[in-house]
């Protein structure tokens, strides 16, 4: 029976495609392997249901397609069967939801020892900022943005003076150090997206959003924008490089602070260097 066979082949073909597909998730670079595991669980459960439903359907088409003299059963409902199917579905759903919520809890709970890094999106480029020696990022406001202050840092905030500001450059992070990535936009929605991180989050003007990661391997990764942000959305790129501790510090030593980049800041800078008093 050709129709039943084709239906069955769709199910089998889908499974084979899944097993042999050369397109699969990128090798992970952070602690979020839990997310990959949850996806795997979901693939198993949904794959089973998919094959079972289509195989059943194909069997029905094969076995009960119209022949001369065939007459259908009259069978309005079967309370017990419907009940069992509902319960079974509920169990399957719970088996996917429960690990998902546990991992979500980890995802939104930033560890206390995470350092902060800021990513700023604007049409159509990325900027980065790291806290200086004081370990704290200075405040910022979109209204402060000027040609010598592209990230809009608050000139009166002493914490901002030693912040490392990276314009049109790449972001470096240290392997094995949990980091809370603060996300900010000055114009439209953007989304800081590194496929190997698994984590992503929109950047919303007027709000600071965040996610956290713990890089587990070194390497160079593409940063893409994942939230449509206008004409050159597809060209909004950067790189993030995960370094060993020594390379990371070597890189950090070469970066310029806000005070160094912003010549109009000399007075405030002097105040800061004298201890911020």
């Amino acid at each position, binding site marked *: 029976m050709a129709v039943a066979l084709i239906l069955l082949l769709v199910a089998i073909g889908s499974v084979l495609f899944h097993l042999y597909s050369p397109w699969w998730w990128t090798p992970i670079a952070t602690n979020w392997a839990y997310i990959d595991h949850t996806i795997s669980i979901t693939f198993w459960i949904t794959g089973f249901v998919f094959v079972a439903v289509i195989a059943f359907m194909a069997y029905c088409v094969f076995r009960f397609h119209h022949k001369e003299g065939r007459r259908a059963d009259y069978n309005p409902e079967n309370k017990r069967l419907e009940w069992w*199917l509902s319960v079974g579905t509920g169990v399957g759903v719970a088996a996917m939801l429960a690990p998902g919520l546990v991992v979500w809890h980890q995802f939104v709970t930033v560890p206390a020892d995470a350092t902060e890094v800021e990513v700023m999106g604007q049409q159509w480029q990325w900027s980065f900022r790291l806290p200086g020696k004081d370990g704290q990022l200075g405040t910022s406001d979109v209204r402060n943005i000027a040609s010598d202050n592209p990230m809009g840092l608050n000139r009166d905030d002493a914490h901002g003076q030693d912040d490392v500001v990276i314009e049109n450059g790449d972001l470096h992070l240290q392997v094995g150090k949990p980091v809370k990535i603060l996300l900010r936009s000055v114009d439209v929605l953007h989304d800081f997206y590194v496929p190997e991180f698994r984590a992503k989050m929109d950047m919303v*003007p007027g709000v600071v959003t965040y996610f956290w990661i713990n890089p587990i391997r070194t390497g160079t990764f593409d940063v893409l924008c994942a939230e449509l942000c206008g004409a050159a959305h597809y060209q909004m790129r950067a790189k993030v490089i995960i370094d060993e501790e020594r390379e990371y510090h070597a890189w950090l030593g070469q970066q310029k602070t806000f005070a160094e980049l912003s010549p109009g800041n000399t007075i405030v800078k002097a105040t800061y260097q004298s201890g911020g008093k």
Partner: protein
Amino acid sequence: MVDIPYEGIPGIPPAEVPDVELYHPRSWWTRYVFSQDAKVIAVQYALTASAIGLVALVLSWLMRLQLGFPGTFSFIDANQYLQFITMHGMIMVIYLLTALFLGGFGNYLIPLMVGARDMVFPYVNMLSYWVYLLAVLVLASTFFVPGGPTGAGWTLYPPQAILSGTPGQDWGIILMLSSLILFIIGFTMGGLNYVVTVLQARTRGMTLMRLPLTVWGIFTATVMALLAFPALFVASVMLLLDRLLGTSFFMPSLVEMGTLSKYGGGSPLLFQHLFWFFGHPEVYIVALPAFGIVSDLISTHARKNIFGYRMMVWAIVAIGALSFVVWAHHMYVSGMFPQFGYFFATTTLIIAIPTAIKVYNWVLTLWRGDIHLRVPMLFALGFIITFVNGGLTGLFLGNVVVDVPLSDTMFVVAHFHMVMGVAPIMVVLGAIYHWYPKVTGRMLNDALGKFHFWVTFLGAYLIFFPMHYLGLLGVPRRYFELGDAAFIPSSAHSLNAFISVVALTVGFSQLVFLFNLAWSLFKGEAAGGNPWQATTLEWQTPETPPGHGNWGKELPIVYRWAYDYSVPGAEEDFIPQNQPPRATQVVQGAAS
């Protein structure tokens, strides 16, 4: 057979209101153009929706040309690409699917299936179509205004949607929002009609639990749309004010092209909440009519009652209600309050249960049936496969933490096309093959129909199934070009080219369908009144196509549910809803 007065049969109440005289058309214009007949309005809705839908189909070819063969077609630039995706999405979701299911199928089937002469407010019903047509014309006009249509993506997220970095910022976005406002006004006029007609104009004996599932699906979807569209309405009005008057409902302080803008104090996330408060129910506004219609296709062509009718009705109602508390699952990575994730993931996955029940009941209806593999049935089977596939990938995206890596990738594109693109279109096509004989009095060509089914079903599956894996790899959506990215292998580009070739093939194969529709109108085999030997009332009309007023002198009286197929002892394998019970017993007596 003894003729029994219906007053003597329990469950048939006496007529509460006298039959009303309809406004009868007096000229060609009032019969075919400014018609108040729901059946004519239905055809007008269907033709307009299909026409603008074909525009959206052509846009999808242009998108696929660019995605499959980047850099080859110099006439597509990045701005146009964004305009194509925006208009494709908006047209398909709202102007095609919503209008076709509710305005098209709703108008045609509700009065016939419930045994009414027409919608209860025929004049408002007519107005509904003309306002819808105006909305479509305003939408189409954006292709011809300076700057072209908006390229903000169909979600129209501010601030981007109304700023100068986005194509169509001049006229496109203003006309888009105006068109949406018009659409909602037009829909509301139609929607009130559908709801009141189902509640108030059912013929005697047609209790709610005897309604065909088609009516249940369209009715519930209409109630949902009446509750959900107002959210889009206010969002559109506020965004229009932000754009035109410089208010800041959704606009915080921001920099526009290097200078500080005049905006300040608004919230972009507020728009997203309003949009998706509409947008998620919208998925089910499209899906529930499809659920209802496909139930009737399966039952009729498997010659078997729909399995678990009562559960099917409650599942429709439960899905409709639940779909109002899941909207923020579209916003897991929007930067909203993170704790929302627990709530919205839970509600979203709970919807899987009533939805799964519907799937089980469809396939259980096939069990021990007498399955006629006619074209409508083939499309119903195609619907089940694509819907199950798309529904199951919804369990990935609904589960908040799984959504984090997959959101904004091609996985999402593949998912929603499978579940609310291909699956409902399978039902639309199956339904056209099923009801075309009633609308025109002629059958569609069977061989062309089967060819159309296999190319469309297998082709659509080949387009969207592999696309999930591009998303799993991390390929982002809404990208004009993927450019250089180390994680994207060259094989992914080959897959994109493959998908584009299949998409163009499936697209062009629709010409076979259009030819069939036109050819069969004149040359198709005469259908008779009830070619599928179906039980529901629309197949029992005295004339085919049904005349104005549907039922001739007497309204039908309903004695049974819509699914008396293969009743043991009955002579035929179907008993129409308006066949009195005593007559069946006589037949049973004769058979035994």
